[in-house]
């Protein structure tokens, strides 16, 4: 048992997340109130999708700057289709997720076929997606969200468990299966670990890159759609502040940025750590602006620890 804990990827972030929760609730018992747990789970449900959207790309050793822009575009398309064309939420949601999938597919195609760095391609598509978003909305929010959607985004299933927790949990399970059980998932990690040897063993790098980016786009769109339901508003600014969040959680969960090594469960705990700290700052009446500073510091600390661990593992491997 002890061996299992010390060897699994997610044990350390889990211990940190749990002790953090205990620590905060010792200082402020209100942390464990039903309402607070509900708010926490709502934030986690959406942020986990944002983080996984980036994690899939980190797995192949790349980065995706357009996560927020694509999620935001899907969000306003979801809200706009319901308000302007009166489409039923299911249809509008499916189309919005389709846009996310297509946008990610486009990213993957451009990177996979040309071999140009993911940074530059997604910086360019970031502006294209954001520009489309602003052109559609004229920077004005869509307010007419059907009651069913509002209910979906804010009601709880039982106790403090919000309904939006269900799709998020489902996606987490699917991704765990994807990376651990499906050949495609292993392709992603193989390409991230060493693209050249992956290619030599018969994996198409270009195809894998396209698949990863399509999944990333789809997950970003999921986050955007859920956020519209939760905010009860199709805001054009959705996604603007996702960049840091999307990297922070996978990195805190121990993802190695060079690619080839990610853990879905560890990323979930990464999201939980970030959400708890954000919540604690609010509970202790600390300036909300400070959240950014803390996130920045946490990223630096986490990457340093990961780097150090990797070096130690390398050294252990040499001996």
């Amino acid at each position, binding site marked *: 048992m002890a061996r299992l804990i010390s060897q699994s990827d997610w044990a350390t972030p889990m211990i940190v997340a749990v002790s953090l929760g205990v620590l905060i609730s010792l200082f402020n018992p209100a942390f464990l109130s039903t309402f607070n747990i509900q708010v926490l789970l709502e934030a986690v449900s959406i942020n986990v999708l944002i983080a996984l959207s980036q994690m899939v790309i980190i797995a192949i050793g790349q980065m995706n700057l357009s996560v927020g822009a694509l999620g935001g575009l899907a969000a306003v398309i979801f809200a706009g289709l319901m308000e302007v064309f009166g489409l039923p939420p299911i249809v509008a949601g499916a189309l919005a997720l389709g846009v996310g999938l297509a946008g990610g597919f486009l990213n993957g195609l451009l990177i996979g076929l040309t071999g140009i760095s993911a940074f*530059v*391609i997604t910086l*360019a598509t970031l502006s294209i997606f*954001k*520009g489309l978003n602003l052109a559609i909305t004229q920077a004005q929010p869509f307010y007419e969200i059907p009651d069913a959607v509002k209910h979906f985004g804010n009601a709880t299933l039982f106790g403090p468990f919000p309904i939006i927790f269900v799709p998020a949990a489902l996606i987490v399970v699917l991704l765990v299966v994807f990376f651990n059980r499906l050949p495609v998932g292993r392709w992603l990690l193989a390409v991230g670990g060493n693209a050249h040897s992956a290619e030599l063993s018969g994996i198409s790098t270009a195809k894998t890159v396209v698949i990863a980016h399509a999944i990333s786009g789809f997950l970003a769109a999921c986050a955007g759609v859920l956020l519209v339901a939760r905010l009860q508003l199709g805001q054009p600014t959705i996604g603007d502040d996702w960049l840091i969040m999307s990297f922070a959680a996978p990195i805190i969960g121990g993802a190695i940025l060079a690619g080839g090594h990610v853990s879905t469960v560890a990323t979930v705990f990464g999201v939980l750590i970030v959400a708890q700290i954000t919540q604690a700052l609010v509970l202790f009446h600390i300036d909300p602006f400070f959240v950014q500073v803390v996130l920045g510091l946490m990223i*630096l600390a986490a990457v340093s620890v990961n780097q150090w661990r990797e070096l130690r593992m390398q050294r252990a491997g040499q001996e």
Partner: protein
Amino acid sequence: MSLVTSDARKPVRGPELMRLLLTNEFGLLLLIVVFGALFYSVSSGFLSSFNLNSMSRAAAINVMIGFSMMAVIATGGLSLAVGAIGVCSAMVCGWLLQEIGLPWPYALVAAIATGAALGAINGMIEVKTRLHSFIVTLATMSLFFGIMIFLTQAQTYRGIPASFVSFGRMKVMGLSATLGPTLVVAVALIVLYNFTRVGKEMLAAGAKPQAAMLSGVRVGRMIVLAHAISGGLAAIAALLLVARNGAAIPSMAGQQGQDWLLIAFLGPVLGGAVLTGGKISVVGAFLGAVLVTVLSNGLLLMQIGDFWLQATLGATLLLAVLLDLARRKFLERRAQ
């Protein structure tokens, strides 16, 4: 990077003039003239004295933002924090002017020093931790910006002296006087990268760090220096923006300064900089940023709407890198 199929790295056979016409820089110049003529034919207001002034003022700032990113690209890195550093420096300047009452030349120097110091912090973290500059500057972007917002409580400093603001509005031969500092910096950078040992060592550190280290270049120091230069230039860009707006505003580069990111990469990348480091063109980055400014200004005059502009600029970057790829493939095939 341009429509003209040439590559500065490979010798082009033919007379001198032909060689000049086939350079990347000439291609950019040609595009600027073509688009300028196009916009002028659609709307004569394009070359009005009012528009020339505002366009040159925007160009002065855009070029400087591009230079700031180029300094880091030279060593093979990148910086997400240019916008955050710029805004932080501008806020320091605003605070010194309004709250401390320092004479403005001192405040300017202090602001540029702040930018350089913040850049140097990025460089030192990068060198010490051996992390990629992307992740370092992603973290420091939110750190710097968060601390600045925390300290200023997101308030705007409007107590900017009239003499400083009037510089932002001054015209020389129909163009904005703010182009002056930009041109001075451009010349200084040309000298740095082409004629000084330090500049050449910086490029060498970017091109082949291992080889550079073996031949005695202190690569770590060069990376810190490149980031410091980048920070200083970001500060100058932000100060030009302060002179234009007449105030130091925390949101002047958007959320965490991210609005500068696209323009910061467009100039150098259009100008032919290689993102893996070692090759940049100061003149190219200058012309690249001017081209982007002409495009933005012209498209706005044609009333395509503010919001389509961002999508167009993104598409421009995409087109530019794809064309560059096609050009290199073409040259490779011809070489075989």
